[in-house]
Each structure stands twice: as C-alpha cells, then as structure tokens.
C-alpha cells in the first residue's frame, strides 16, 4: 500500500501538522459541507486552509457538479460544463487534494485509513462519508440488455443522449420526479416517449390524485404516452432492449429503457466498516455516525428513521456537519418541511407538507379550475397550515411553506387561504392580471412613458429581448413608476414563451451579491467603507454604479451611525442638495410644519421668501405643508436662510427618510376626536425627523376611527380610540394602494413612540434600499414584524434604543448647516467669480 502524498503540499517548507479530513464522495452534499466549512473560517477572519488537510475521493471522473441539473442537461437547456459547481482550480486554490475516478473500496475505522480502488491509502483524523445513493433497480429480466440504463449521473445522461441520436422510442419506468424529468428530456431530444408507472397517479408521494391527474393530462398533451397502474414484468429484446412487458399483458415498445423508480442510500462501504446502518448510514443530530470521528451527510444517511431525496435538507446537513467539523458542537440537524417542484418548463407543480387530511379533524380546502389547469389544495390542522399542493400557479408556494414552517395561526385567514397571499393578506385590492393577449396593439401599457403593446412586442421580437430589464431599457415601458411591470412581464412571456430561470435580484449589475448578504457582511465582518464592501464581494466596476452606491452609502450609515462619514457623491441629487430637483433643473423647497400646524409668522415668512426670490409657484401639499417650486440652485442657501430666520427647517421632502406626519385636529377641536392626535403627531415627528430610511416614510395620526388623516394608507399610522391607540403599518396610497396591516393596540403615548421607533429601526435595518414598507412587509410577512415587535419585548426596546442612538447623529437641520457654509461649493458655479 502506497502512502498517499498530497498533490499540492500547501506549506512545502514546513511540516504539515494539520489534522487530516478525508471525504468519500465528490457530490453535492459532501462538497457543500466543505464549502460551508471554509466559509465559516473566512467569516471569522482565519485562513480556511489552516484547519484541515483535506482529501476528497470521487468515484466519477468529473469534478463536483450539480446533479439536480442533470435533467436540464438531458433536455438540452444546459451543457455539462454549465452544471459544474467547483472547477479543479477551486480545489487547488483551497489546498484540497482531489482524487477523481478512483472510488474508495474500504474504510478501516480502527486504523483510521481508507483505501481506494487503485490501492491508494489515505490516513484520516476525521472522515466524511458522502457516498450518496444508488438507483433502485427492479428485479426483472432484461436489465443487462444494451439500451437499458438508470438516470443518476453524467454517464447515464450520455448513454441516453447517444440513444436519442440513434434510436426513436424510449420507455421510462417510474412516474416520480426523476422519471418525469427523464421522460420530458428525452421528448425534448426528439424521441417518442412512453412512461410506465406502478401507481394510478403520477408523483403520488408529492401530489394528491387531482393534481397528479392534471399533470398527466398536461404531459399527455405534450406527447408523452402514459401507462399507469403498470407493473413492469420484463424488458424484452434480443440484441438490445426492444420494449417492456407489463404484468397485465400490455407491451410497450422502446429502444431505450430508462429505470427511474427511485434511489436507495449507498451504504455498502459503511456497513463493511462496521458502522451502524439501517436503510441508510445512521447519524445522530450532529451528523456523526456510530464512530464519532466519522461523519456522514447526504442521500446516504438515515436520520431519526428518515432518508433523504430532495436537496434542501442536504444543505441543512452540510451546514451542521461543517459546524461540527469546525468545533461548534451545538449545531444540530433537524428536518424542516420540504417543498417539491418539478423542473419541466411550463409545468408548475409545488407541494409541501401533508398531501391530504390525515383524519376527520383535518381540513382540506381546494380550488380547482380544470380548463385553466389550475389546482390548489391546502391542508389545515388545529388552525395551522400543514400542507399545500399547487398545480398551474405555484407563486404562493413559498408563502404556504413559510406559514407551515412558522406554525402561523391561520384561523383568521382561513376563508381566504386558498386564494393566495395577495387575497389573504388583502394586499391587492381588486387587481389581477388582465389578459394581455386580448388587448389591441395600440393599447397603452405604460402610462408614464406612453408605450403601447405593439411597441413592446415589436421591440421584444426585433431585438430578441429576453429579460424584463432589457425590455425596460429598450422601450422604457415600466421603467418609471413600475405599475405596469406585470403587464410588461406578461407581454414578454407571451411573446417569447417562458425563459430560463428567474435569478434572485442582486443589488445591481456590479455584483452577484444580494442586499441581505451585503448587509450581513457589513455587520459580521465589520465592513466600514464602500471600498471594503466592494473588495469583499468582488465588484466588477471599481466605482460601482448609480444603483449600488446610494444603497451602500445608506447601509453603512445605518450600520455605523456614529462613525461612518456620509458620501454626498453617492447620493441622488435631491439628498445631496437637500431640495427636490424639477424637470427644468430648478428646485422645490418644502419647510417642515410639525404635524401640519403653522403660524401667521411662518406663513408670512414663506410669502416673503416667495416674493423676494421670484419663486413662481406656491402650492399646498397633500402632506400638510407648503411647497415653493422653481427655486434656482444658487438661491437655495439664501432661501433657507430666510426660512430659518422664521424658525422653519428642512421638511426632508426630498429624502429617503421621514417625510410628514399627517394629523387631524383630534380631541382639541373635533367633536369626534378621542385623543390629542395633533400633539401626538408632533411628538412622533420630533422623534423621527432626520432619519435616513431605505425609502421615504410617511406617518399619520387620526384622532378617531373616522381616520381623517388617512392613517391606513401610510407607512405607519396611529388611529386613536377611546381606550388608546391602534398602530397600523405598511400602507401605501400611491401607485398601488395598499391598506395597512394592524400591528398592535397600545394604551399610552409612550408605547406609541416606542413601537414607532422600533418599527422604523427594524425597517431601517432589514428592508432593501428603495423598498417601501409595503413591499417589505409583503416580502417578510406581517407575522415576522409582529413577532419581532410584539412577542419579543426586549428586542423591541433594543430596536427603539438603536433608533434613538442613530437619531442623535442626524437630527440637525441640513439647511442651517448649508446656510452656515457647509458644502458651499455645491451652490456656486465655476469659476467661483465669473470672468468677464
């Protein structure tokens, strides 16, 4: 037995004292574990290569690839190269020894070595078994005929593709996820495909009978012939496979027979090594096998009696195993609800949790529209959602899954649950997708930019546009207020047919990183400047762009309120100049009027300044203030100076920050008022003004439920009642009206202030830049907000304290500062004194 020498000794001039970690299996679960392990160290600021000397054995000759995407390769949507996760260079850069095409054949647990087929021996201190699974093969005659294969790895796909080139008919055995994807891929490759399934309906472990039937109907329409209730008795053929015979006598001809009836954990090595096995390799919550130095992850394991076939729990196992390998012994694996989806273009299936009521105490609610191919079922138990099966429209799948995972009490939603999130949350009042196909070519789709349906379709066709962004860029449709985004997307879809996958939107085109990732890194890795962030995430453009720069500037300001120095050059002009730019390049000036209350003196000061500076338009705003429109940039400091003299300060009408706090006159004057809404509004405005937020924020306080301040369409509204105050959040009165969600009812003004500060801070810390509270709450769910603010009182108080802490650094009037000379260069033209 040769002692294995590392291919790339990492510290060639020093003895390698690192413990040895050997991984058996170069598949998704094993490699994900290694990636997680390396990332942990990276996040903690240590060199990940210091911890272990890692050796990986892979049985396949390929590097690590995304097995889930094999069906995409089969269907021709991807090439083999495109599904590689980590190229060889990655292993090298990480100092990992990679052995491919040389399967491990024995584990010697006592002596801490593994032996590969080639005779190589590797010593280990820790061993990770990630041998995955093997295809289940029925015990029938004919398995060894040429033209018979399973559907498990790249070699299988290559066999199938070869058959598709030279032969005409395929039989797929198995009507689960894998079998259906195989059948569809072969169909895409031009074969005539029959599918044999043992059960009466397809995907019976993930779908109930009605949705399984819809699926079969749709695939039948696409030309796949189904033989359900079909038990395969033998594969017949002389030179090669010629077809299969079923137990009931039916015969299905085929030159290629694909076995896709399931998988079973690959446990042979572990069993031979004396580790405890059952259906799979038995692991405890810490992903250790019966030998505490030997771990196992992936489809080869059995945890609490359960084996695994979907990818999501594998990622959880990898995370836990990596933590254990890094010495964090608190990390424990637990199974969470999983969701199934089928990767066949244009077929939308989603299923999670229970497929049907377990007994009479469970409820099923179903919605069915056969002609449209729509089916939805939700299963309820004890007022909580326990399962959902969706067919045809799966948009609400993740929402249902979240409700299941959070064990949310859905009693109040029950009646509307099956209608989906938009209806159940009452978020979309009377909006559904209109039928774009029925619209005439001259129908105007984008009102802002005057773009017709015909123009959009013509642009998509003539320029082969495939993304919403591209359509937006070329036609300007949906590039302004965004209200018509759904219409434009529908037109795109209708014109091109479904296009690839949808990518989670990153922060901008300069990086693949998303908002949440970046914000987390700012905190955990203590990134304190734009340069540090850009370096950490590998920005493609050194200067960034107009999308990422303002976002990063805000994120830094929010994370480090006391120390980060604001970058005016990374702000939109309005926030840099502290006034609102108008279409002709002049500015509008809106002084703050606390709670809408003003005085004769203020009115006169505004009148005077309007006349003195020839300001052409004076207009009262819907936000209970007065707007001076058409101020020249050079005049701004002088205008502000005069307003400051009268006690008027910036109303931040230009800011992604607190705009107004609308109030009604309340108990002081109104015969219906229950509380002093005006003075409460002023207290709120005094607390909140100056705060920078992801997008603009509007508040309102109504003195009674008549709600004259329109508090239920504000970001945060307070409705006074006799017994106290109702707080409501996440409303919007603009492009798309959204009524607030109720947050909490409190008894005192002090509580109103605490909840408001905490809510704003939660929004400041967790929403994406340019995301209003309404879409933020739709995205994270009002329950999350309630949990953070109501259930977690300590968390609420901490949020409120952080809000107040941040406020001390920004509550100074920016107008006064500029009147005093700050950023003076901004308001003069060059040369500073004009030459004759």
């Amino acid at each position, binding site marked *: 037995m040769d002692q294995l020498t590392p291919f790339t000794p990492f510290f060639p001039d020093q003895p390698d004292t690192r413990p040895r970690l050997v991984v058996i299996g170069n598949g998704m679960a094993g490699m994900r574990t290694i990636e997680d392990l390396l990332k942990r160290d990276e996040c903690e600021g240590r060199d990940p290569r210091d911890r272990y000397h890692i050796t990986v054995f892979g049985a396949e000759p390929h590097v690590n690839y995304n097995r889930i995407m094999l069906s995409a390769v089969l269907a021709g949507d991807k090439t083999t190269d495109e599904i590689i996760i980590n190229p060889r260079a990655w292993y090298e850069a990480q100092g990992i020894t990679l052995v491919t095409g040389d399967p491990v054949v024995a584990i010697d647990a006592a002596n801490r070595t593994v032996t590969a087929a080639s005779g190589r021996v590797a010593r280990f201190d820790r061993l990770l078994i990630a041998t995955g699974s093997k295809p289940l093969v029925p015990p029938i005659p004919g398995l060894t005929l040429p033209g018979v294969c399973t559907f498990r790895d790249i070699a299988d796909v290559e066999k199938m593709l070869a058959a598709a080139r030279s032969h005409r008919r395929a039989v797929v055995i198995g009507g689960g996820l894998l079998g259906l994807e195989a059948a569809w891929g072969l169909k895409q490759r031009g074969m005539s495909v029959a599918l044999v399934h043992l059960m009466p309906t397809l995907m019976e472990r993930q779908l109930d009978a009605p949705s399984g039937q819809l699926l079969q109907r749709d695939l039948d329409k696409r030309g796949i012939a189904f033989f359900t209730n079909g038990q395969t008795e033998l594969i017949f053929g002389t030179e090669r496979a010629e077809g299969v015979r079923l137990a009931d006598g039916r015969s299905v001809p085929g030159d290629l027979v694909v076995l896709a009836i399931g998988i079973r954990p690959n446990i042979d090595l572990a069993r031979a090594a004396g580790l405890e096995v059952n259906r799979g390799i038995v692991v405890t919550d810490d992903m250790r096998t019966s030998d505490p130095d030997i771990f196992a992850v992936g489809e080869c394991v059995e945890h609490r009696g359960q084996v695994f076939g979907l990818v999501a729990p594998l990622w959880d196992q990898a995370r836990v195993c990596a933590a254990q390998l890094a010495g964090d012994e608190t990390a424990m694996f637990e199974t969470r609800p999983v969701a199934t989806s089928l990767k066949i273009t244009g077929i939308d299936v989603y299923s999670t949790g229970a497929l049907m009521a377990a007994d009479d105490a469970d409820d099923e609610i179903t919605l069915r529209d056969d002609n449209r191919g729509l089916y939805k079922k939700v299963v309820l138990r004890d007022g909580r959602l326990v399962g959902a099966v969706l067919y045809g429209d799966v948009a609400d799948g993740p929402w249902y899954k979240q409700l299941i995972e959070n064990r949310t009490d859905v009693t109040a939603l029950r009646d509307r649950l099956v209608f989906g999130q938009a209806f159940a949350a009452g978020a979309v009042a009377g909006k559904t997708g209109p039928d774009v196909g029925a619209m005439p070519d001259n129908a105007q789709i984008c009102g802002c930019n005057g773009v017709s349906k015909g123009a959009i379709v013509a642009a998509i066709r003539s320029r082969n546009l495939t993304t919403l962004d591209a359509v937006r860029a070329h036609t300007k449709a949906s590039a302004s207020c965004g209200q018509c985004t759904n219409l434009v997307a529908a037109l795109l879809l209708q014109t091109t047919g479904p296009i690839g996958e949808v990518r989670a939107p990153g922060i901008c085109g300069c990086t693949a990183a998303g908002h949440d990732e970046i914000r987390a890194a700012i905190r955990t890795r203590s990134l304190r400047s734009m340069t540090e962030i850009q370096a950490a995430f590998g920005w493609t453009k050194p*200067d960034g762009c107009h999308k990422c720069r303002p976002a990063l500037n805000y994120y830094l300001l929010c994370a480090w309120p006391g120390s980060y120095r604001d970058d005016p050059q990374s702000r939109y002009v309005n926030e840099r100049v502290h006034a609102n730019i108008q279409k002709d390049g002049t500015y509008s000036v809106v002084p703050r009027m606390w709670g809408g209350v003003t005085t004769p003196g203020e009115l006169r000061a505004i009148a005077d300044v309007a006349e003195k500076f020839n300001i052409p338009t004076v207009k009262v705003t819907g936000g209970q203030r007065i707007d001076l429109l058409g101020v020249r940039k050079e005049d701004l400091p002088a205008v502000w100076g005069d307003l400051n003299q009268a006690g008027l300060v910036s109303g931040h009408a230009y800011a992604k920050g607190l705009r107004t706090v609308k109030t009604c006159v309340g108990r002081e004057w109104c015969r219906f008022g229950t509380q002093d809404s005006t003075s409460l509004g002023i207290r709120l405005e005094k607390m909140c003004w100056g705060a920078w937020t992801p997008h603009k924020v509007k508040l309102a306080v109504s003195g009674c439920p008549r709600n004259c301040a329109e508090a239920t369409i504000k970001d945060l509204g307070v409705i006074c009642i006799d017994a106290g105050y109702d707080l409501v959040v996440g409303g919007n009165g603009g492009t798309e009206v959204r009524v607030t969600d109720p947050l909490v009812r409190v008894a005192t003004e002090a509580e109103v202030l605490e909840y408001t500060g905490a809510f704003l801070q939660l929004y400041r810390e967790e929403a994406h830049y340019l995301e209003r509270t309404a879409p933020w709450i739709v995205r994270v769910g009002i329950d999350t907000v309630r949990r953070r603010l109501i259930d977690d009182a300590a968390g609420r108080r901490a949020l409120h304290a952080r809000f107040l802490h941040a406020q001390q650094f920004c509550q100074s009037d920016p107008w006064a500062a500029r009147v005093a000379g700050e950023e003076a260069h901004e308001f003069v033209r060059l040369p500073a004194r004009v030459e004759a």
Partner: protein
Amino acid sequence: MTPKQEWRSIGPLSAIPQRGARRLGFGIDTKPIAVFRTATDQLFAVIDECPHRGGPLSEGIVCGTTVTCPLHHWVIDLSDGVAVPPDEGATMTIPIRVIDGEVFIEMPRHMPGTGQGGAGER
C-alpha cells in the same frame, strides 16, 4: 487650435469634488456647460443637457467615466458624450485640461451674444 478657439480658465481643480461635477457660470450659445472629475482625477466637460430630456448632467452620480442623469437615470459616457446603449443620443463634449492645478476648457472665442449667463439661468 483655430483662431476661433481659446482656452479659458475655470479655476482650481480643487473646486470640483472627486466623483463630482460643477456647472459653469457661462455656456456655449444658449447651452450650459458641466465639468466632471472622476475618482481617478480624469476631467471631462460636456454640454450640461441629457440627450433624453435635457436634464442637468452636472447633478448626476459619477461612476467611472460615466454620469447618470438625475431626471430619468440615463447613463452618459463622459469620454464621448454618448448615451450607454440601449439608450441613444449624445451630448457635445468640450476639450478640457489641467495645468498646474488650474482647469482650462476650450471655448469659442468670445463673441457678442454668447458668453456668461447662458441657458442655465431661467
């Protein structure tokens, strides 16, 4: 340089912030002029009007050698004044240079009816 042109000083480089811009107090005919300074101290001068709807480019965010118009977010490449595709159109560029920390731009020689003021003033 033809006799109709002249280099005119617009003051010290330090008057323009990095990744920033300024409008000049004079223009060419009725058109205002914007000067830009990038993060790496490259200088550009262009007519201060976006080819889309005439927005003041001098108020935009400067990234690399581009500026984003503050009105509708068109991106203009300052090196040639051309809008980044798929947008179309261009604004005129004007020669600019720095000598000993002082910035000069090349202007048509002063003639009656042009010069200071210009369209930037309402």
